[in-house]
Every structure is written in C-alpha cells, then in structure tokens.
C-alpha cells in the first residue's frame, strides 16, 4: 500500500490517503499523491516539504528527501504515543521491532527473510481457506480451543491447516492457532530488544484483533494500537518534513526542494 499524509504547520492532519502499491508497483505514488492533494484542497505547489519513506521510497521522484522507514515510523508512533518504548510494525513484506528511548529510536530488529512472522503468513493461508484477512479477527474471537500449528514455514503451515480442517476441527480454533503462531514468532523476535511498556503495534496486521490479543498474551503486557495503524510511517515522514522546514526557516537557511511536478517513476528497472 502507498500512504500519504499531509499536515499543516501545527501538525494537524489535512488529508490522509491509503492507496494500492500493486504489482506495477512503485509507479502509483503520483496518483495517491494527487488524491491526497485533492482531499486537502491544496495544489502541489503549496506543499512546503515532501518526505518519502518505506520500502519504495526511492521511487518517489518528486520527494524532497528520502528518510528510512525506521526513523519515520518511530517519529509517527511517538507522536501518537509519547511514552512508547517498543513499536512493532507488522506488514505484508516484513515485521520490525523498534526500541524507542525518550522519543528516539535506539535499536531495532527486523524480519524480511521469512514470510512466517509477517502479514504474508496470514495472506497465504487465508487464500487457501477462501476467506479474507479482514475476517480473521472476528472468526478467531469465536474460538474456544485454539489449535496449535506445529509448522513454522508458511508453506507447510498452509498444508497443516488444510489437513486440520479436513479432520473437522473448527475454523475459529484453527484461525486462533494461526494468530498465536504469528504472534509467538514476532514476540520471539521483539524479545531481543528487551520488551518494556508501552508497546504499540502498527501495520496492516494490527487491524486484526486476534493477532493483537495473541501478542498481548505472548508478550505478557498491554499492547496499544493506533486508530489508523497503517499511517504511522507516513505520519512520521510528514512530521519530520515539518521539523526540517521549520528548522531551516529558523536558521534562515534555504530549503532544498524538488520541482513540484507529479510524475511516475521511469528510471526503475529491477533487472540489472
């Protein structure tokens, strides 16, 4: 997904849009940007500073600066939860744990090597079950006796789930088992940071209350979820952009800006 957040000089949100990134990828940032400008009723010229972040941040040719998702993410979470110590972000491609001290990122752990422990785990398995990821949370809430999933590997867990279903075990109990599997994998990763409250979880998977509850159980502490858990990275990028601009203004330094022209990225080629 490609997300855009536009804020004003006081940090108030003028618009926020979540659009597809899709397979054609990386080329759609301009369209999501257009939509966000429209929603805010702003012209592109009126944007003082634009920060791109995330996995595809180099593919936003009209950004004034690229900042890593870790930095932006930490900033975004701190703006919503000033007392956060551990931020967990679970996306479809990877999962990250951030350790934050006094609002600053001090350490992180990450898994982008194995689909287990990322949102992809649930995507792959729900596909085989013919249900949508959005339904998982409410399905697992009906579980009374969660089924333990013994395979870590997503591919084999999928086969295991089909096999358990064919044995007649209830879907709710199986889905609860899946939530526990992903939560225990993520908890195992995040424990390397020494977990301290407050813990905040973001990313698409944070919308799944089943996983959030399983994380609470696995970590043994309260886990907070922002009202819109997909937008913290973009929110952080906007806040960092605002801060850079205000600092430059205060020092009377010029602001380095790109030409305000919305275009899709053309230089991108994955084959080298």
């Amino acid at each position, binding site marked *: 997904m490609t997300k855009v957040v536009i804020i004003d000089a006081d940090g108030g949100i003028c618009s926020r849009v979540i659009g597809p990134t899709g397979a054609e990828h990386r080329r759609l940032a301009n369209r999501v940007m257009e939509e966000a400008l429209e929603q805010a009723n702003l012209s592109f010229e009126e944007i003082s500073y634009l920060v791109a972040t995330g996995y595809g941040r180099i593919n936003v040719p009209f950004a004034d600066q690229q900042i890593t998702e870790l930095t932006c993410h930490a900033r975004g979470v701190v703006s919503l939860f000033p007392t956060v110590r551990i931020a967990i972000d679970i996306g479809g*491609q990877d999962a990250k744990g951030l350790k934050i001290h006094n609002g600053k990122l001090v350490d992180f752990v990450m898994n982008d090597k194995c689909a287990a422990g990322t949102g992809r785990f649930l995507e792959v398995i729900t596909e085989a079950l013919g249900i949508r990821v959005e339904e998982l949370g409410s399905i697992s809430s009906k579980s009374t006796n969660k089924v333990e999933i013994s395979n*870590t*590997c*997503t*591919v*084999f867990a999928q086969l295991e789930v089909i096999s358990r279903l064919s044995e007649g075990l209830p879907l709710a109990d199986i889905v609860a088992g899946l939530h526990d599997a992903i939560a225990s994998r993520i908890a195992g990763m995040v424990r390397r940071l020494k977990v301290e409250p407050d813990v905040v979880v973001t990313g698409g998977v944070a919308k799944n209350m089943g996983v959030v509850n399983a994380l609470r159980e696995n970590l043994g502490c309260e886990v907070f979820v922002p009202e819109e858990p997909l937008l913290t990275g973009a929110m952080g990028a906007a806040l960092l952009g605002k801060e850079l601009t205000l600092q430059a203004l205060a020092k009377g330094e010029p602001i380095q800006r790109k030409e305000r022209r919305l275009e899709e990225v053309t230089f991108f080629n994955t084959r080298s």
Partner: protein
Amino acid sequence: MAWFMGVDIGSGTSKGVITKDGKPLAYHWLPSGFNYKMVAQKLGDELLAKLGLSPQDIAYTIATGYGAGSVPFSSQQVVDIRCCARGISSISPSVRTVIDVQGMSTQVIRLSDEGQVTNFIVSERCAAGSGRFLNIIANVLRMELKDIGPLSLKSKNPVIFTTGCAVFGESEAISRVSENAAKEDILAGVHKALADKISALIDRVGLEEQCAITGGGGLNVGLIKSLEGNLGIKLLVPPQPQFVTALGAAIMAEEHFAG
C-alpha cells in the same frame, strides 16, 4: 522363500520397495495426500500386486519417513536417516556423505567406512530449503517438476533470488515473469538458491567424498549441477534416488529378520 518390504511415507510422496536377498525386486510410489494410513495400505497392496505376492509372503516390514507411524502392517519403525544411510551403502559402499533432498526438509548424513551414521544435520522444515521450493516455482511457470531441471541448464543469465523464503521467492518469480525474464533463467536462479541453502547445511557437517544425492532432489539435474558447482565435486546419483530410503528400510528388514 522370504521377501521384505521397506515403506517410506514422506510428506509429499510415499515410496515402497520389496527386496529379496538384498536386491530390490519392485518399486512403487504414490502421492501421500492427507491420509497416511490409507496411502500406506494402498502402497503396500499395489507393491505386492506387482510381484503377485500376498501379505503373508513378506517376512518383515520396516516403515520410515514422516508418516512412519501410520503404516498399519509394519513390523518396526526406523528413523529415515538410518534407512537412507543403509540404502546408499547397499548401492555404493564408498559413499561417505549423503545429501537427502526431501519435500519438507533436506538432511545431510555423514557415514563411516563401515556405513554407520557418524553425524547428520536436518534443515528446519523450510520450503526454501527443500524440494518444495522447486514445486512452487514450477507451478508459477506452469511447468512439470520433471522438466525444470533440464531447462534450467540452458540458462545464460540466471536470475538472482534475493530472498531465502519460498513464499517471497514465489513473488519474486512472478515479478520476473512479468518482466519477461526467460523461464530457464528463473529456474537456474531457483536451483542456485536451493543449492546455496543446501551447501550451507553441508558446511556444518563437513563434506567427504564420495558424496551422493538422494530423495526427489536426486531426480533434478539442475539442482545436481548447481550443487556440483558450489561444492566443486561430482555427485554420485544412484539409480532411483527417491527410493533409496525405502530400499534401505527393506534391507534393514532383511538384516533384522536374519538376526
């Protein structure tokens, strides 16, 4: 007259061998499906039918593999590492290292001069470290498993896979297909990725020649060439590599029966 049976119930396929006087007389395999008990029974029946035998003709049966516990007619269960080792040394006593590439994991077994298991390592159950990865990519390319090895050898410009995960690897393969990468180049990349994982496993137990490859991976010339490139040696590929563990089980059944 006594015949012996070895049954290897794997995660993907189930294999059976009947031996007599240490020689394999019949081989048979079936997809394992979800009901191991059922497939074991069917495998046993069809294997007997190949030689016109009845269950009473089998003096001793050893079951092995992932579903070894689901073989109702087995006399004994033996862990697949020992069966694989016994099978390969019955074929070639000079083998000191076996790479057994299965559907769910890969194991590397070290053997003594007497054919005893001295050390082994089993990969995590990870699709990217097992034959499953090849199935997944074959599906993406809409090809049959048996065709992907030979085609991969035609590659001049192998695609480099950046991930060690079969799920992410599948997405990468789909992206490369949409960019019109040649099938052979994608396949060469996948074989190399699997060979790299297996080579890392071999490093941990050490390599001593002669080195053999068994399991379904032994049927794939692309994987064999890629491993040979990594290891800098020639691999021994036994006839019917996917049956080596079942064969070992049958031979161990004979030896057990003889006392």
